[in-house]
């Protein structure tokens, strides 16, 4: 039986009658063991049924369906207010103890070296992009303008994560690069909402900067 399902949906009586018949025929220890296991599961089910009825008859019982309706009918502001009314946050101050220092030391000592050699970094030029199957011109003109158009079609203002989409990692990385190009060359601007930790990308009508040259690319490949 799955967690969260209704225990009363299981008809116990026919199953118990069947088990009663089987127990009479069980001669081997292995079979008796299985019968006992089934009996134990039935006992758990009876307990669940009893608890379910007790909870449901309680004056404090709240139907999950009603909760869902209440959630759907409330604004996020009202839901946040409901939480604040019943929330008494715990308080305290973090201090550094010997145990925490020991754990920190262990953590830092076990970290692997992670360095990026400067000599291994190279600017992403048109030729390198071509080896990836895309030309620099295509990337900053066709695709970027396509994304700009998509942004405009979706209301002209989207959260950064929404514009990034839910595609594969490669697809999202590609869109992240395109968004950065859009912002760099004035096709869109960022609006920040620090209190809500949100970043909106807002479309602009046209570029405010000249088209970049290959040498201006800020993207680098780390080998």
């Amino acid at each position, binding site marked *: 039986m*799955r*967690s*969260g399902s209704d225990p009363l949906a299981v008809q116990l009586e026919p199953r118990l009658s069947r088990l009663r018949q089987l127990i009479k025929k069980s001669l081997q220890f292995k079979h008796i063991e299985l019968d006992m296991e089934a009996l134990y599961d039935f006992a758990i089910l009876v307990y669940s049924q009893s*608890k379910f009825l007790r*909870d449901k008859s309680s004056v*404090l019982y*709240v*139907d*999950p369906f*009603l*909760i*869902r309706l*209440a*959630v*759907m009918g*409330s604004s*996020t*502001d*009202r*839901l*946040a*207010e*409901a*939480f*604040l*009314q*019943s*929330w*008494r*946050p*715990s*308080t*305290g*101050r*973090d*201090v550094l*103890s010997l*145990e*925490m220092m020991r754990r920190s030391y262990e953590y830092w000592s076990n970290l692997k070296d992670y360095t990026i050699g400067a000599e291994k970094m190279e600017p992403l030029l048109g030729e390198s992009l071509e080896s990836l199957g895309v030309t620099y011109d295509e990337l900053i003109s066709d695709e970027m303008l396509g994304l700009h158009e998509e942004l405009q079609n979706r209301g002209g203002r989207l959260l950064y*994560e*929404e514009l990034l989409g*839910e595609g594969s990692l490669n697809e999202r990385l590609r869109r992240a690069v395109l968004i950065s190009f859009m912002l760099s060359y004035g096709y869109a601007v960022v609006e920040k909402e620090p*209190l*809500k*930790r*949100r970043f909106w990308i807002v479309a602009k009508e046209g570029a405010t900067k000249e088209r970049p040259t290959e040498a201006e690319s800020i993207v680098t490949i780390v080998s």
Partner: protein
Amino acid sequence: MESSGFPAKIRRAAQLLFFKSHRIPGVKGWELKRSLGSGYSRVIKVLRSQIEPLGITIKAVGDDGTELSLDSPEDTLSTARFVLVLTDPLKVSDAKTSGWSVDELAGLTICLATIGSRGDKAARSEVEETLRQKFPKWKVRNFLSKYIKWGYLEEEGDSLILGWRAKVEVDTRSLLRYVFGA
């Protein structure tokens, strides 16, 4: 008993409760007994009366999340967690100053209400589905991992249950009432 040693015990109790030394805040009853000796609940009650004018109180919470009276026998309190909590509700602006967004607060309300209405345990898929009524998929994933990390929810197989922090900080029954009133 209440000689020169008693004020020192109150100061020691304040140190134990105010300064977090574990991942989970608060101090177990047996830890207080080890440090303050038997009769520690009386020390805690005096400390409580001194800090309550500041809007902070001391709450003893059992393993199952029920709040215990400080007048309970010390044997009963030994496994309880003693935590400092605020006495008054916060305003939205206060919560924002503490780094919470309105969406995060609303999302947590939905999770706790759904789990509370299911007897403190609900299938993760059901919680996600209810959250999806209000938030996009990427935000739902993000919220759930945050709530689990902060201790408000815990994973139990394919289900979600109330975490230690929800048990200590949130009155789920009153939350359900407010949700219906919202």
